[in-house]
Structure formats: structure tokens, C-alpha cells
């Protein structure tokens, strides 16, 4: 009878421990929402671009944590045109952690018309499985404005 009781207590302990461990892990994942990448400074190297021309953007990017990143990017003009750019995807910051300066270059599509153009970058980060599959870390889109001038 004593052995049976011990067995019961052991089972109860294991089940309780499993529940608590699951809850703890989940809570740990849920609470872990620090933004892993900060962009302190963005410069447009070519403030005016012609349609079909090249747009250069230089950004200081501070990689704070080793997290998976996915940045959806798109270009817009003031006349409802949109061009979806290939997203930036990486499992780890390609150059490791730290402050980096990155210059990127896009071709403004031919059909874009003169006026204000915008470059949108919507980042999404995953630092643990929960963020990877359910609740990624997001922050406000990075919006860069430039002028499209007539050819």
C-alpha cells in the first residue's frame, strides 16, 4: 500500500512538474519580446530618382540579438504604383551582432510616375519557437521617402 502511494505521489509530481515546466517555458517565450534589431539612422543617398533609375539607401543597423529575421519590402509612388521587393531573410544576422552600416540599392520601376516615392520595410523577428510559428516580434515599418523626378 505504501509503495502504491509513493508511486502515486511520484506520478503526481511528474505530471505537475511537466505542467509547470510547460507553463514556465511558454511564459519565458511569451515574455521574450525585446526588439532584436534597431535601425538608428537611415540616409537616402539618392534623394531624387528617375523612373528606371537606381535608389540607394544607407542604414545603420544595430543587431542586438541572434534572431531569425524577415523584412518584407516594397516601393510605392504617389500614383498608386507598387513594386514588391524580394524580402530580406536570414536565420542569424549575416555579419553577427553589432552595429553595421548597410547600403542597399533598388531599381525604381519604369512605370513609376513623378512625385513622392516611398520605400517600406516591415520587419518581423523570431527569437524562439513560439515567435517562429505563432507570434513574431514586429515593430513599426521603416518608411523612407524620396522624390521621383520626370525623365
Amino acid at each position: 500500500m505504501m509503495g502504491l502511494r509513493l508511486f502515486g505521489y511520484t506520478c503526481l509530481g511528474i505530471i505537475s512538474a511537466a505542467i509547470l515546466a510547460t507553463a514556465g517555458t511558454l511564459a519565458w517565450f511569451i515574455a521574450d519580446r525585446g526588439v532584436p534589431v534597431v535601425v538608428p539612422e537611415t540616409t537616402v543617398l539618392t534623394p531624387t530618382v528617375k523612373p528606371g533609375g537606381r535608389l540607394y539607401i544607407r542604414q545603420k543597423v544595430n543587431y542586438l540579438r541572434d534572431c531569425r529575421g524577415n523584412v518584407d519590402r516594397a516601393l510605392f509612388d504617389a500614383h498608386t504604383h507598387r513594386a514588391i521587393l524580394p524580402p530580406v531573410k536570414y536565420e542569424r544576422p549575416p555579419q553577427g551582432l553589432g552595429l553595421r552600416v548597410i547600403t542597399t540599392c533598388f531599381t525604381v520601376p519604369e512605370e513609376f510616375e513623378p512625385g513622392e516615392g516611398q520605400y517600406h520595410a516591415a520587419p518581423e523577428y523570431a527569437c524562439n519557437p513560439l515567435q517562429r510559428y505563432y507570434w513574431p516580434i514586429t515593430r513599426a515599418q521603416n518608411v523612407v521617402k524620396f522624390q521621383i523626378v520626370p525623365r
Partner: protein
Amino acid sequence: MPHRKEVSLERARELVRILEAQLPDRMPAPPNTELGERFDQRLMESQGRRDGRDIHMFPAHLRIWFDTLSVDDVQKLERLMAVKAETVAWIDAKNGRELQKLDGAVEFITSSRTAAKVLIWIGGMAVAFVGGVAALAKNGIDLFSMLRGGR
């Protein structure tokens, strides 16, 4: 009374015998030094009423027990007496081992309930904890920020 001179010794002796025989009747009743119960008992014995129906004739421990029985107790006893004959037969048919097994079953159910209570409590705690952490995370507070290294 005959004249003294006419009394022969033989007659006198007979007279004494008669007086001695009558003595108990002529004596006053002895004082009753006995107390209630014993007196009653002797009284009833003398009246041939020793039929065992009188409560004060029960042994002392039973009398004490009767005295402590409350109305509730009596009701309980009556309920017990009203148990169905099959039930009594069923319990009666159980041998020692079976009864022990029944004890084990009862203990199992009791401990299962305890275990269920423990599990409910732990589960509730876990859910509350995870919910609280999620609410804090939604508001940008990391409960584990002190525990996390780096960054």
C-alpha cells in the same frame, strides 16, 4: 395475662418462644438506608418483576450510553437498522480480503480526488501565470528581464 404465680416454667418458655417468633412483627420497620436504584431493584425483585425491561437494570456502561444518545444519534441508528437486507447480506458475504480490497478502492478514489485537486490547482496557477506574463508582454514588460543574460 394469667397470674404470675400460676405460670409454670414450661409455660413461660413457651410464652418466650411465642414472643420471640412474634418479635419481627412487633419491631418497628428498620430505617431505609438504601438509595434509589438498589432499593427499587430489591423492591422489584420482591414483586417478581425482574423481566429485564427496566432500563435501570441495564449494566452501567449501557446506561451511560443510553444517557448520551442524542436525537440525531437515535435517528442514525434507526437509519442503520433500516438498511436493506440485501445490503447487509452483501457486506456479510465479503470476506476479509475483499473488504481490504474495498478499503483499497476507497483509498484509491480518495487519493485520486486529492491528486485531481492538486492538478487543478497547479493547472490553474500555470494558466494564470502564463496569462499574466502574456498580458505583461503585450504591454511591453518582460517579467524575466532580470534573468535573461546579455542584450
